[in-house]
């Protein structure tokens, strides 16, 4: 496994909207899209598949899903780790920065802003006003910083860092309503109340198993393990309960 430093930006509403969209479209054969985690490097927005690799953002038209057509390649930066869509934006996380691209013209992504941070890699999630991002120190990124960073993105061209919360070794993260889940290896699955992003409160920690990423859905949450998947009932956010797993 590559040593990873993680950068996660979690946009509040987006997760909610993604869930909502999935629910609405689940019975619609013409528009049924799945849901990925915060570590994803592929994402689907409307009729386009966006992918990031080491340096680039690729755009594929999937109006005819069985026949994707390559449309564009945009150079972003170095060590691109993850991509997260919200509204007309793509949040792209690299080793050292968060980039925000506008995709109003879906085949011509345009950079709206970027925030450089000391280190960090990986996934992103966001809403209209707040982005959460984890920074994970490690050999590859050459840093010892482990934290959850919170950005006010009300003005998308000037993201403002509003909070730094120390973590042990954070990886993927996910948002459900006003609750943020952070996979913090060495500590556990952190459950945080982020209703007021300026005053984030720790609710509790689920320990005992190392999770690398999460996908919160309506009443179930998937947790990625290096040898399987765990399922939690999250209908009561004050006390999520593990109900099943596939392992080995």
């Amino acid at each position, binding site marked *: 496994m590559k040593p990873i430093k993680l950068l996660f930006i979690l946009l509040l509403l987006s997760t909610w909207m993604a869930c909502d969209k999935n629910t609405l479209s689940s019975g619609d054969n013409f528009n*049924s899209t799945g849901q990925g985690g915060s570590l994803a490097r592929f994402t689907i927005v409307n009729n386009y598949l966006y992918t990031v690799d080491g340096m680039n953002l690729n755009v594929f038209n999937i109006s005819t899903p069985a026949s994707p057509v390559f449309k564009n390649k945009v150079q972003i930066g170095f060590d691109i780790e993850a991509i997260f869509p919200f509204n007309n934006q793509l949040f792209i996380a690299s080793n050292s920065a968060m980039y925000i691209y506008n995709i109003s013209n879906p085949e011509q992504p345009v950079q709206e802003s970027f925030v450089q941070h000391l280190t960090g890699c990986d996934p992103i999630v966001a809403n209209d006003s707040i982005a959460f991002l984890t920074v994970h120190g490690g050999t590859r990124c050459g840093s010892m910083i482990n934290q959850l960073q919170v950005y006010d993105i009300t003005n998308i061209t000037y993201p403002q860092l509003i909070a730094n919360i120390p973590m042990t070794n954070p990886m993927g993260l996910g948002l459900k309503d006003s609750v943020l889940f952070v996979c913090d290896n060495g500590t556990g699955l952190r459950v945080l109340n982020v209703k007021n992003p300026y005053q984030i409160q720790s609710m509790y920690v689920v320990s005992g198993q190392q999770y690398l990423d999460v996908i919160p859905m309506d009443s179930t949450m998937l947790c990625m393990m290096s040898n399987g998947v765990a399922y939690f009932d999250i209908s009561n956010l004050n006390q999520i309960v593990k109900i099943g797993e596939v392992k080995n």
Partner: protein
Amino acid sequence: MIQKKSVIGLTAAITLLLFGLVACVEKTPKSITGYAPVYGDTATTLLIQSEPARPIVHGGKIYQYQNYTFQIENGEGIHIINSSNPANPQKIGFIRVGGCSEISIRNNILYTDNHQDLVAINISNINQVSVASRVERVFPGINQSYPPYNGVWFECVDPSKGIVIGWTEKLLVNPKCKR
């Protein structure tokens, strides 16, 4: 005085030459531990097919689509899990996709990376998937020219042997390539 200067110049030149020689010697070790490319033939690396469920060993990213959870087996393929009852999820099969690490799904078409290619896989029949289309060479995949380490010797790549699917440590004799 002039003579002395030339002597100094000559000495310097010789010294530099010697350094150069030493440097040359250092740069071409007779044998050293380095890296060698692992080749995959086209038939194997591009083969995509349904296979029986198998152990999750190097579990990668996860994805939920309708009643199924998918987990990447890094570099090898995609596990299919029936999660209609999340209290009792069951592995039901595996899709072989060499070099894969990513997944996204719309309308029963699964997109993933097969080394350098983007592939669209039809999963309408989850037990018998089929490749719908392929967009060639859009991803970097494994670097085809050198190993992912700096300051190392390696066996030069011979593209006629196939696509590079990995790099392995090897005792190299008279290596010619260095990064």
